[in-house]
């Protein structure tokens, strides 16, 4: 029996006549005179629950999540670092949270000052010239930057139809390129897990608009050919885009602009610790080189004397990719983080993120295959391919069994270039003891019985949901019988 109360679906808890919110009596002497033809006969059939049921329901459900605040969460590519509590308190300050997006610039000078400084900080960290804080998430940042690139070439009168993308890239890269109207061309990785320069050269011609690179890449490797790569692209008149998902490895150490990137996006919810919220919100600002700045979305924050303003007068701008300014609540948390850390603290983040990952790698390199060497940046990819071949144990089995030990699973089956991939990113906010205990658990799991692992997890309320059934006979909502 489930001892947690009120965990049925809200709709099953519903009891006609109950409610958890009451409105004040109407204080104006006017009736509702909307035409009957516009009105529904009944309000929507929402559930009817009392306040204590509602709270028990969601509090009990919350205990069925693993989260950074409850468990080590080494999910590769996601940078699951600690989310400081001060950010939650300060970002909900009513002097910020209760600002309307369309109120006059004069009535939100404090907010604009913060956003202006954030633009400048992100430009400095990128080593680039202009920043738009508008994109709502990394994928929207990619799309925005590619639209900027398209507008840049259109303005120059050049027709360039292709975006080149390494085969180890995040799926958002090709999806964003297609949405921006480009054809995508996949570039192979070499045996070292880096860009295959020969393949890149063979696919590079005057049709190339942008090369999208993730550096450090999704294997956790810094591509040491980067200067050659960016030179190759620039010689052909193409632009280099940096997918900034892995910025946590290089803060204050090297800058995308310095290694030849012309455009990039940040994931403020990763690198600058906006909480992930169970899948969002994120924030995906982009930084670009000087020649691309005129094409950035409107508005940008500008400073004139002591006054800040939103600048909409940007005739070459691509327009906008969303309504209003951006995911300001997350940008604020990023700003609070950068201001808390200062320049030395930012560098310390990357140094320790890389140290933690390398330490964990040193503990695991003889336990699992590590196809791309025994050094990494902020994350590394191990492979269960030998276990799979010899004992039919998959990366998924290992990930599921880790849940029993109280660890969230690594990212599995990504990047696609490594079979049975387990992508592990410990972040800088974990201790050596945590890393040791996690490594010990993995070592123990490796030696466990295969059938036992196929049925993991064993100690959670749930084990191995039937995903095929979910997709074949989709039930995407509750319905009254």
């Amino acid at each position, binding site marked *: 029996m489930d001892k947690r109360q009120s965990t049925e679906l809200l709709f099953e808890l519903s009891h006609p006549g109950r409610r958890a919110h009451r*409105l004040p009596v109407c204080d104006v002497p006017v009736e509702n005179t909307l035409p009957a033809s516009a009105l529904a006969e009944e309000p929507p059939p929402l559930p009817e629950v009392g306040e204590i049921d509602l709270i028990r329901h969601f509090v009990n459900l919350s205990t069925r999540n693993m989260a950074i605040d409850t468990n080590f969460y080494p999910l590769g590519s996601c940078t699951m670092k600690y989310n400081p509590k001060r950010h939650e308190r300060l970002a909900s300050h009513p002097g910020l949270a209760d600002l309307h997006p369309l109120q006059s610039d004069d009535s939100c000078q404090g907010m604009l*000052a913060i956003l202006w400084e954030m633009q400048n900080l992100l430009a400095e960290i990128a080593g680039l010239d202009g920043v738009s804080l508008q994109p*709502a998430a990394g994928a929207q940042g*990619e799309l925005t930057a590619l639209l900027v690139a398209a507008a840049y070439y259109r303005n120059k009168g050049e027709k360039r139809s292709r975006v080149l993308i390494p085969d180890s890239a995040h799926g958002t890269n090709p999806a964003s390129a297609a949405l921006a109207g480009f054809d995508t061309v996949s570039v192979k990785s070499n045996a070292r897990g880096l860009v295959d320069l020969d393949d890149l050269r063979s696919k590079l011609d005057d049709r190339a608009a942008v090369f999208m690179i993730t550096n450090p890449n999704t294997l956790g490797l810094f591509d040491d050919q980067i*200067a050659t790569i960016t030179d190759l692209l620039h010689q052909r008149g193409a632009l280099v885009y940096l997918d900034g998902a892995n910025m946590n490895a290089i803060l204050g150490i090297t800058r995308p602009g310095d290694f030849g990137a012309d455009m990039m996006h940040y994931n403020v919810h990763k690198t600058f610790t906006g909480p992930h919220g169970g899948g969002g919100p994120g924030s995906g600002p982009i930084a670009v080189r000087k020649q691309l700045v005129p094409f950035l979305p409107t508005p940008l924050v500008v400073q004139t004397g002591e006054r800040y303003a939103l600048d909409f007068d940007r005739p070459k701008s691509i327009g906008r990719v969303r309504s209003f300014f951006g995911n300001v609540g997350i940008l604020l948390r990023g700003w609070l983080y950068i201001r808390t850390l200062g320049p030395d603290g930012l560098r310390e983040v990357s140094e320790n993120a890389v140290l933690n990952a390398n330490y964990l790698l040193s503990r695991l390199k003889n336990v699992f295959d590590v196809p791309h060497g025994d050094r990494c940046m902020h994350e590394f990819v191990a492979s269960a391919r030998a276990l799979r071949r010899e004992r039919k144990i998959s990366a998924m089995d290992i990930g599921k069994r880790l849940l029993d030990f109280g660890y969230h699973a690594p*990212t599995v089956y990504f990047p696609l270039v490594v079979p049975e991939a387990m992508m592990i990113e410990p972040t800088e906010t974990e201790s050596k003891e945590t890393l040791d205990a996690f490594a010990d658990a993995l070592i123990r799991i490796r030696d466990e019985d295969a059938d036992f692992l196929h049925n993991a997890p064993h100690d959670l309320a749930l084990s191995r*949901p039937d995903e095929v059934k979910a997709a074949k006979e989709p039930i995407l909502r509750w319905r009254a019988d």
Partner: protein
Amino acid sequence: MSYVLNTPEDRRAMLAAVGVSSIEELFEKILASLRLNRPLHAPEAMSEMELTAELQRLSEYNRPAGDAVCFLGGGAYDHFIPAVVDAVAGRSEYYTAYTPYQAEASQGSLQAFFEFQTLICQLTGLDVANASLYEGGSAVAEAVLMALNVHPKRHKVLIAESLHPEYRQTLATYLANLDLQLQTLPTPDGFLDPDAVKRAADDRTLCVVAQHPNFFGCLEEPEALAKVVHEAGALFIVSFDPISLGLLKRPGQYGADIAIAEGQCLGNPMSYGGPYLGLLACREEFVRKMPGRLVGQTVDRRGKRCWVLTLQTREQHIRREKATSNICTNQGLMALKATVYLAALGPQGLRETAELCVRKAHYAAERLTQVPGVRLRFDRPFFKEFTLQVEDSVPSLLADSLERGYHAGLHLGRWYPSLDSCLSIAVTEKRTRAEIDGLASALEDRHKGEANGIPTPSIRGGRVRQDNRG
């Protein structure tokens, strides 16, 4: 203070285990010539106390809704947020979790998102809803791209001029490099005339996008619109106000094929524009064309009911350039807030909230049009927002009203040159009769040329009084 736990001893032990002598050595793949050999230009680190003081100092240059009475709308609204919403969303088991890829470790989020999808279906009267998009503007773009997936041979997109101008701009930006023709249908009388749609729509028309209630606050004629759109074989996409559905007919009832909305009003603070959430619901037959995450119900190996992310073959991490959308991160926490909000209100609470909005907005319209020189611009029924035409300069009226303690409205001339003498005013259930009367008096005083009755707040004097979100 970087939240790093490694002590110097830890570092030494870890470096030794790795087999290097310094942290520097771990970065040897980065050529010296590419290194930043100076500290980043950023302000020095701050303690929590200093940071709190700095934020307080900066916030005093702002005039939030609690400091000046907020009659601003245009897609973001000062609705009341019940405490239960923040109590739930403030649980870090929710807000510090990632996307629920590992179902066994994410049932809390997954069940909540399944409930969210169901609530949005109940709200809209449509069959399926996704687990959220970024916000209202990009939701319009995603809906049009989804329509294109349904009708790949059709290329003409008709949009009402009464659709939020920033949504229209977003759509134009998204479609800039795709082979689609965008045509804006004028709405000189404050609504989209179904006959004009009938004239413009043909067998190349992919979809018609309207907003109901529209950007001017007016009600459209959604049933008549659905009819003419469907006669052309096109899809009817509607942007709706979730609160309005406490009273108004639901998109599924009047024939919308895809309904999208800005969901900020469902328990999310205005937060200067984000994070908000986009809602998207549609008819069952389009489910495999939908953008974004979907949570589905299934059973585990012991037969227990549970929830998982499903139909992921639509998504970018599987389908890459052939995905239905590039969206990955969505607005999960905002969807959770909307879930708690809708469950807290229930059908009666939502209806009463909508009723209060309508009645107070109409009282405000009545009261404000008694001010000399002020009249309603459109002779149309409206929900919680309405458009006034005034005789004096709108920017100066708005600046003056702010001095008197009111964010009085939005200058429509900013987006519509023909409405340069107009402002739109939004009235939520939070506005009181006294506040509405106060705004009317302020405009009357201004008309009489009287000095304002309250001391002029200086730009520095942000006087953050209270957390008005209750």
